[in-house]
């Protein structure tokens, strides 16, 4: 709690007089509070029902998976995973993975975590009537059985590299003893959903709808006592208010995609620090290979691979990304964020070469027949619409420079700055020529199948109707391969995708955290920003009133 000396004397007296008691409270060296700004209400803060970030952020403090990805985030390397609910795991054959649960693991109501919880949770997630998305992600798990008092055995339908990732990331255990009597379709509206019982370092405290959520540390958490005894999530939608709450000291931490011009007020506050980390997010210009809003007809311009290649050559990605993000993003050559482990193995894409772009277009018959600076062919102007959401500062900042760069090679670009939901709707319907997309992807490259394979073309998230048989073939080979050896196979697959020029891959923004300097051991993870929060602590010499228990 912070004493605010108000402009009015009366306020100062009122506040100071009544704050004196709490300030005098006995100091506790093993305590600390953190208030975190989040942008939406965590309405379903447990695994397996919602993919919304606010829910996943809170769930990561309440629930543990069987194991966590190691710091290199190599999804197919079983040896690099870190124990969580499971203290060990072993492989009996190429289709079988056995996890041994940590006997110390407990639910917040005191009951032990058992194989029954794991089995119930996996089976629930595999039920397509409950969550078709999770059912799809877990389609390769054939069965889960208890093979001992503390042992759970996963059987897979086929041998592939990401078996352990599927078993640990998409089927986080829930308490079967509390949930098996609730019909699946009632879970979201149940009392449990309003006060989830988890097994993680923090337990549910109190939710004030639309305002804040408080979590309290589990003192006997089996992996170690959390150093911060209280976590308060402040629910703040407006971007201005989010930053202002950190700047005025009400909030202690705020996760954001930072742009250079937003940095100034933060660095002017000596109490604040900026921590950055690679992310799984990626921004790109997606070419629609079917006609605007008509998935039965090839796009009159973008169906031509050479035109797509020319558009890539005509954009100076380095300059663009540096101008908008400064040091807080890097240029990417494929649909992977900075943190994706195969990114290091991605073939380098072509650089900025407007002369080559013009030559390519000329070779395809595009000429400026009327001297207006825009190329045309058979009466069709080389004119495209670029759609992007007006709520994304980065994309808004990049749209005009992209327009200007493409104009240099004779391509006219009409900018369609859209309201967020309108942009999402048009994107889903294929009503765009070029879509300025940004997505936070899963850590596994196996997830690429959803947006870039022929199987998903025109449906789901493959809104650009991308189909490269070469990529699909190489993808299957890469997904089958386990361990670090998969890296070469993934390089081949991404190379095949690049050769099809389905998009201009632009940037992967850094995950940035603005945080008060009184915290120690601060670390964030791209697969769950707050996962390691229980290891943070407050520097005893910088403890403030609200850090007292």
């Amino acid at each position, binding site marked *: *709690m912070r004493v*605010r*000396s*108000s*402009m009015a004397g009366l*306020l100062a007296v*009122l*506040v100071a*007089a*009544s704050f004196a*008691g*709490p300030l005098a409270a006995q100091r506790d060296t093993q305590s600390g509070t953190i*208030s975190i700004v989040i942008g*939406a*209400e965590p*309405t*379903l803060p447990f695994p397996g029902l*919602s*993919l*919304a970030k606010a829910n996943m952020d809170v769930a990561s403090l309440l629930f543990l998976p069987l194991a966590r990805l190691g710091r290199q985030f190599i999804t197919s390397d079983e040896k690099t995973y870190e124990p969580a609910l499971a203290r060990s795991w072993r492989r009996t054959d190429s289709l079988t993975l056995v996890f041994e649960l940590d006997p110390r693991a407990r639910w917040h109501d005191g009951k032990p975590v058992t194989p029954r919880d794991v089995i119930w949770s996996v089976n629930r997630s595999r039920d*397509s*009537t409950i*969550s*078709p*998305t999770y059912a*799809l992600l877990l389609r390769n798990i054939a069965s889960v059985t208890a093979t001992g008092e503390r042992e759970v055995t996963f059987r897979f339908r086929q041998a592939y590299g990401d078996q352990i990732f599927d078993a640990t990331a998409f089927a986080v255990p829930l308490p079967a003893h509390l949930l098996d009597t609730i019909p699946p379709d009632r879970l*979201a509206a149940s009392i449990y*959903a309003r006060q989830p019982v988890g097994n993680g370092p923090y337990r549910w405290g109190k939710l004030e*709808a*639309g*305002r804040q959520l408080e979590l309290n540390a589990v003192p006997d958490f089996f992996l170690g006592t959390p150093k911060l005894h209280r976590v*308060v999530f*402040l629910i*703040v*939608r*407006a971007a*201005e*208010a989010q930053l*202002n*709450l950190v*700047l*005025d*000291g*009400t909030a202690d931490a705020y996760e954001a995609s930072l742009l250079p011009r937003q940095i100034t007020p933060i660095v002017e506050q000596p109490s604040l620090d900026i921590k950055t980390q690679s992310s799984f997010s990626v921004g790109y210009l997606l070419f629609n290979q079917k006609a605007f809003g008509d998935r039965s007809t090839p796009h009159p311009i973008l169906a031509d691979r050479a035109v797509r290649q020319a558009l890539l050559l005509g954009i100076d990605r380095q300059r663009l990304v540096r101008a908008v993000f400064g040091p807080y993003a890097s240029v990417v050559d494929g649909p992977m964020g900075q943190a994706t482990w195969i990114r290091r193995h991605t073939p380098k894409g072509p650089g900025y070469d407007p002369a080559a772009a013009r030559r390519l277009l000329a070779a395809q018959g595009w000429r400026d027949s009327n001297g207006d600076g825009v190329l045309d062919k058979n009466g069709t102007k080389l004119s495209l619409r670029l759609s992007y959401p007006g*709520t994304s500062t980065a994309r808004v900042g990049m749209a005009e420079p992209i327009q200007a760069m493409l104009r240099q090679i004779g391509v006219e670009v009409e900018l369609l700055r859209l*309201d*967020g*939901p*309108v942009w*999402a*709707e*048009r994107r*889903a319907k294929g009503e765009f020529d070029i879509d300025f997309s*940004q*997505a*936070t992807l899963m850590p596994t490259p196996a*997830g690429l199948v959803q947006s870039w394979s022929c199987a998903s073309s025109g*449906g*789901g*998230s493959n809104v650009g109707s991308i189909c490269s048989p070469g990529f699909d073939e190489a993808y299957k080979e890469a997904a089958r391969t386990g361990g670090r050896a998969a890296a070469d196979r993934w390089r081949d697959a991404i190379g095949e995708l690049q050769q099809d020029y389905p998009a201009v891959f632009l940037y992967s923004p850094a995950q940035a955290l603005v945080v008060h300097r009184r915290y120690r051991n601060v670390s964030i993870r791209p697969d769950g920003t707050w996962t390691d929060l229980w290891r943070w602590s407050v520097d005893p010499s910088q403890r403030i009133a609200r850090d007292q228990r």
Partner: protein
Amino acid sequence: MALVGRPLPTDRAGSALGGVLRWLIRRLLQAAATFAVVAVLLFVLMRLAPGDPLARLTDDRPVAPAERARLEAIFGLDQPIGTQLTKFLSAAARGDFGVSIEYYPLRVGELVQNRLGPSLLLGLTVLLVNVTLGVWLGVLQARRRGSRLDRWLTRISLAGYAAPSFWLALMLVSLFAIKWRILPAAQMTDPLLPTDAGWLTRAGDLLAHLVLPTVTLSVVTLAATMRYQRSAMLEVLRLDFVRAAYARGLDERTVIWRHAWRNALFPVLTLLGLWLPVLVSGAVFVESVFNWPGLGSLAAGAIATRDYPVLMATSLLVSGAVLLGGVLTDLAYQALDPRTRAG
């Protein structure tokens, strides 16, 4: 006393009351009809407006078509618009606005109930500032017409009126909350206030959080109140009955506040009637900037995410407040000015 039907010639008071009642019933029926039309129009227009209401639920992550179909079924979005409208009207008549899309599985009624209090608190505080300070300054200006004070107050009020509220809000936060740190930047209360904090602490904390949003909203509305009150007062001060009051030897305070001001209230009453929706819904932008947990920020979020059920509930609440504001203003006119009385 006859309240309905032709009044007896000898019962003048009853006749007047009956007239007012008939007028009120007619007025309320008109308001109800308008409200119903507004409800249907709002519903249809919202559904016709482009935008995917389910986009926010998935945070742009890949979602299987079956998952999407499941979500559409939960919120009834898979039904034809006519069916949706019928179901909505039938449920709304029972006070049930369904489940919020963004806050799923929370019910809209619960959300609105939680947000109404903070909005009313902010709205009433702004109204209080207006009624007291705005009216007093307007009267003061009229009394000192042409003076240096009048000119300065005119300039300041016009500057306040012209200042965009979003700019003003950001400036106030930048100075008072971030630079000088004497007031909080946002929220209605300190989220980390100890649970055992006394009522004095809580009241002080609430007041401190109330200052900046109130000032932001008041600066604009105060200017309007002052201008209306000043010109109405100037009109009245020229009338014979005011001169007569002075001639009878009454002191200035009595003449101004007991005689003149009462007759100069009508334009301000109209203005206050128009502000009733603001009182209920808050100012959308101001609530967003200050993260004030009221109906305005709820509505702003619902617009951004196309949360149809929440948007319908908040819009209808504001529509109801507009209609109610009109009825109350007319009633106040009737109470204060016999010439406007019905019957």
